[in-house]
């Protein structure tokens, strides 16, 4: 298997994208490891050159794999391919712009660099600036005042320049992999002549099943991430509430944003999922009317969607409706949260699995018709 074949596969392309992103991040972040003990720091120092070469080599492989899109003249691409390429470059530019701004803001907000310049140095241990200890900020200040500032600036510049140059290709590669995956059925259909007996009803059913499958596949990974992260988070909260462990300032700095981000992502997933469930109900009803799925499947989709709604509002409703609920110990409250959130996730996931499997079966039946037609 040559490089082009390997990178022409969905797994190959995505692995390469992850590798490029990981190596770039490790190369940049490894500079913060200098306060480590000598052997580790020495190995990191020695691997700087190899790291930068590996970054460039991986990127060039990716670029080679996508040469048909990235290096093609505009007149050799159709309008959709051009739009795909332009969108990737636009997104790449936006990301670089935001990363640049983010790095700048992080340096200004997390480290009082301005004070450093104004007062000719910033003493991290000074009590004037530290009502409460802020370990991450203090670490950054100490680190930036150390001997690595120039190396940091050089590496930051190199990584930003590299990102600006390669990120559009990375975006294009990731999307191209999704493009290939979602079009595997299209590849089978591309050269097949249409089924002579295909009626507009058949086409409508296939379109409905495809739409269900598309919505399910788009949402599956998001739901899986929440299904893993959310119970883990609640379980950790229960454990902390039980042990009454002290959470230090550093933990707050780390867990505060994680908690906020995870809760926002979970709520957004839940509500976005409910809208998708509404569409699934409508589409599975269409399939029942066309006698392509059983009424039992449809009733399960409806029941589980209703259950999702009930479970999601049960806890806040209990909290506001039952005054005694507010007097429960915190641990019991977390347990209730764990049970209701898992019930919500399970019912929502089950809706998607049932509707997705029904759609998958119908698409397989339709593809079988095409295969039979093509071979006969």
């Amino acid at each position, binding site marked *: 298997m040559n490089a082009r074949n390997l990178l022409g596969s969905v797994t190959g392309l995505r692995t390469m994208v992850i590798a490029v992103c990981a190596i770039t991040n490790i190369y940049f972040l490894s500079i913060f490891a200098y306060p480590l003990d000598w052997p580790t720091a020495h190995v990191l120092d020695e691997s700087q050159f190899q790291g930068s070469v590996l970054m460039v080599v991986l990127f060039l492989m990716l670029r080679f794999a996508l040469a048909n899109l990235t290096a093609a003249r505009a007149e050799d691409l*159709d*309008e*959709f391919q051009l739009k*795909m390429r332009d969108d990737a470059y636009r997104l790449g530019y936006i990301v670089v712009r935001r990363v640049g701004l983010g790095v700048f803001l992080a340096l200004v907000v997390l480290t009082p660099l301005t004070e450093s310049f104004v007062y000719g140095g910033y003493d991290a241990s000074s009590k004037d600036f530290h009502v409460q200890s802020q370990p991450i900020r203090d670490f950054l200040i100490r680190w930036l005042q150390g001997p690595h500032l120039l190396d940091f600036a050089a590496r930051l510049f190199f990584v930003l320049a590299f990102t600006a140059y390669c990120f559009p290709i990375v975006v294009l590669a990731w999307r*191209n992999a999704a*493009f290939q995956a979602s079009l595997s059925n299209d590849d089978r*259909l*591309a*050269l097949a002549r249409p089924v002579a007996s295909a009626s507009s009803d058949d086409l409508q059913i296939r379109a409905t099943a*495809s739409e269900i499958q598309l919505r399910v596949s788009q949402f599956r990974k998001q739901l899986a991430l929440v299904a893993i992260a959310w119970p883990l988070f609640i379980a950790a909260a229960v454990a902390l509430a039980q042990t009454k462990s002290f959470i230090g300032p550093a933990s707050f700095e780390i867990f505060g944003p994680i908690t906020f981000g995870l809760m926002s992502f979970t709520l957004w997933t839940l509500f976005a999922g409910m809208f998708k469930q509404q569409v699934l109900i409508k589409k599975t009803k269409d399939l029942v009317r066309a006698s392509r799925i059983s009424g039992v499947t449809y009733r399960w989709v409806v029941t589980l969607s209703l259950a999702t709604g009930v479970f999601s509002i049960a806890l806040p409703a209990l909290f506001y409706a039952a005054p005694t609920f507010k007097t429960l110990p915190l641990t019991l409250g977390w347990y209730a949260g764990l049970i209701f959130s898992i019930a919500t996730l399970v019912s929502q996931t089950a809706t998607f699995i049932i509707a997705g499997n029904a759609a998958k079966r119908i698409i397989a039946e339709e593809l079988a018709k095409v295969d039979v037609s093509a071979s006969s």
Partner: protein
Amino acid sequence: MGRKPKAQEEQIISSIEQFRVLAGLSRQELADAVDVHYQTIGYIERGEYSPSLVLALKFAKVLNVSVEDIFQLGELK
């Protein structure tokens, strides 16, 4: 390739698959006739990409129907 803005996805209703089937053309044949990649046809058929006016007119010419027969404006919200 990426997802289109919702407004764009929902406003154009494409019947191109029906007309292609009626004309007895495969995606590859239709793609060759209008000079695009066959995967682009798949995206247009699934309503995930709205073609330009030039491409829409090419489809109409190849399938021997009017552009309005193939593409309709969906309900505006």
